[in-house]
């Protein structure tokens, strides 16, 4: 395997939880609700997966439980932000604090206990023997396949269906959408909840494919990176795929440069993903300076029927 293939494999491995969480964030924010709770939601998804998987030894049940718990948190977040019209930044931060604390508390009894299994892998049979393609696809686990299908599904949903049109209308101009007979509240509730479920799955993926055990705070800031990637990807699922894998590749590149005998201190190598992100953002901002930024227009603004802004 050459260097590029190895890097791509590492990038997919590092990028998958980021991709899932970023897609979740995109769904939230496309509906006009800011999502800053990703870190807490990922931790809740991870701890629920561990607890249920260890108790029942049933992976599907564990994933369903993680989805259910994060759905409940998503409904709480929607209730605060949509029904009560609370400050979305505050609600998101509360979600992060709440999730970090609660997951640490719930995880005490199972912390350090190994999971009964790891993320299952699709057996591709003969495909694995194809040189480069087989190396890459042969190493992908089920959640990675799921995340790829999701990218495609969300792209089609957002840009090529009338549901996606409704979603974008609600995120851009809820008042207009309301006049057109779109149920703004219902759409916001649904997409926020769907988004938090995906973020919960991102947490589940971290315990299933990185280290098969629970320890508090194991996401180590990945949720915050996903929050940034949502903006970096400009709320677009296809770009989210690119951004998450780019970030994963840069994450891995630091270690590869250490191994190539680079004399750059690892502290600087660790900064590469962030520096590149800033540079790319600056470049894209400059190139698209005369185009719409892609930000859902009413992101962060609660919708109150018949109120003028």
């Amino acid at each position, binding site marked *: 395997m050459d260097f590029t293939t190895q890097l791509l494999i590492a990038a997919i491995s590092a990028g998958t939880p980021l991709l899932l969480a970023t897609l979740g964030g995109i769904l939230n924010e496309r509906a006009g609700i800011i999502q800053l709770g990703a870190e807490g939601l990922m931790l809740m998804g991870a701890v629920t997966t561990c607890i249920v998987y260890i108790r029942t030894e049933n992976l599907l049940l564990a994933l369903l439980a993680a989805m259910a718990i994060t759905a409940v948190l998503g409904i709480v977040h929607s209730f605060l932000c949509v029904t009560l019209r609370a400050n979305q930044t505050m609600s998101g931060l509360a979600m992060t604090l709440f999730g970090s604390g609660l997951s640490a508390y719930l995880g005490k009894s199972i912390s350090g206990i190994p999971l009964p299994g790891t993320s299952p892998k699709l057996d591709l049979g003969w495909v694995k023997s194809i040189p480069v393609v087989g190396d890459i696809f042969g190493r992908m686990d089920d959640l990675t396949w799921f995340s790829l299908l999701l990218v495609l599904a969300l792209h089609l949903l957002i840009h090529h269906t009338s549901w996606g049109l409704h979603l974008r209308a609600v995120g851009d101009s809820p008042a207009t959408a309301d006049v057109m007979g779109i149920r703004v509240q219902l759409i916001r509730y649904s997409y926020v909840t769907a988004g938090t479920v995906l973020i919960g799955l991102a947490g589940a993926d971290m315990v299933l494919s990185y280290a098969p055990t629970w320890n508090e705070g194991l996401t180590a800031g990945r949720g915050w990176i996903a929050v940034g990637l949502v903006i970096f990807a400009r709320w677009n699922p296809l770009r989210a795929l690119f951004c998450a894998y780019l970030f994963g590749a840069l994450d891995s590149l630091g*270690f590869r440069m250490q191994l190539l005998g680079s004399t750059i201190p690892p502290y600087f190598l660790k900064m590469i993903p962030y520096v590149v992100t800033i540079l790319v953002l600056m470049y894209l901002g400059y190139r698209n300076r005369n185009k719409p930024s892609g930000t859902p227009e009413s992101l962060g603004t609660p919708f109150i029927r018949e109120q003028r802004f």
Partner: protein
Amino acid sequence: MKRRGQAVTFSFALMFLLAVVLAGCGSNNNSGNNTSSTKAPAAANAGTTTEAAATTEPAAKKPTVAFVYIGPPGDGGYTYQHDQGRQYMEKELGIKADTVENVPESADAERIITELAQSHDIVFTTSFGYMDYTLNVANKFPNVKFMHASGYKTAANMGTYFGKNYQGSYLAGIAAGKMTKKNHLGYVGAFPISEVIYNLNAFTLGAQSVNPDIKVDVVWTNTWYDPATERQAAISLLDKGADVLLAYQDSPATLQAAAERGAFAGGNDSDMGKYAPDSYLTNPVWNWGPYYVKAVQSVMDGTWKNEQYSGDLADGMIDIAPFGSKVPDDVKKLVEDAKAKIISGELDVFTGPITDNQGKVQVQEGQKLTLEEVLSMNWLAKGIEGTIPK
């Protein structure tokens, strides 16, 4: 609108309160119990004479003991081993100790150590970063005994303790040197500090003692527990061709990455075999229990000294974890023989000649490094490909 605004504020206040309370539960639930549980042993002592008290010194009042942990006891690594040691000490001496977990190595630590010093006779601070805070508090509470792990500063009422875990790394190196098929090992270094450096060197020397052609690649993650980062580090090493890895972090991420690619790996601090028995090598483990018993006992007996205690294979503070299921018997025997030699004093890990990877002789032939020289090590042995970041 006004009323709705109030409702929002109120619901937020509630949400935040809940978040804060639960976050508190998660990280510091033991500190909240301090007052109740410190009184409990005294009361139990007065009422019934427990077995341990009867055998040691019936008249002596049992000291109250507290531990300050850097992580949660469930980290499955460093703090977990300290907590096992605490439980062993509690059982042996019939003392109930208090613990505070997740204490950051910042000014917060000084506040927590001060609070503990007010209600305890002995305080163990179990991480390097607590050194100066422990010293500050020790100067304020001359009647309380402080024991700080892995540091080098002492006071009249403050001692230090740690162990020569590099002996364990050397033994793990012997196993790795025998298990590798490509003569290529990988080391996932945590932080480029001397503690990690002397373990990396010992691992390399151990491997070279059975297989002189060994080369060791090293990467630094600057983490103690971050599975996503450590996995990437491990994959990079495997991609470069290493087929046996050792990690100095507490997470089993390196072991899982190695297991996926059919390589061997070990972790650090505690037995990690349960995460992937078929791909597990072994690794150094801590066993703090006997030391904690001895230290608390010496305070009870009045024989406590502010010494700098250093445990090793011989007194059992250091050991290696049980081998993974695929490690053959001849490798096990080789490691056991070396272990016996280290215990008897026949073998010393850092015995010359040792050359560093720049070609400079660091230990002359026939010489041995003193403990002080080991603890301040800042060079990488020959055969290690990598640098110490400055």
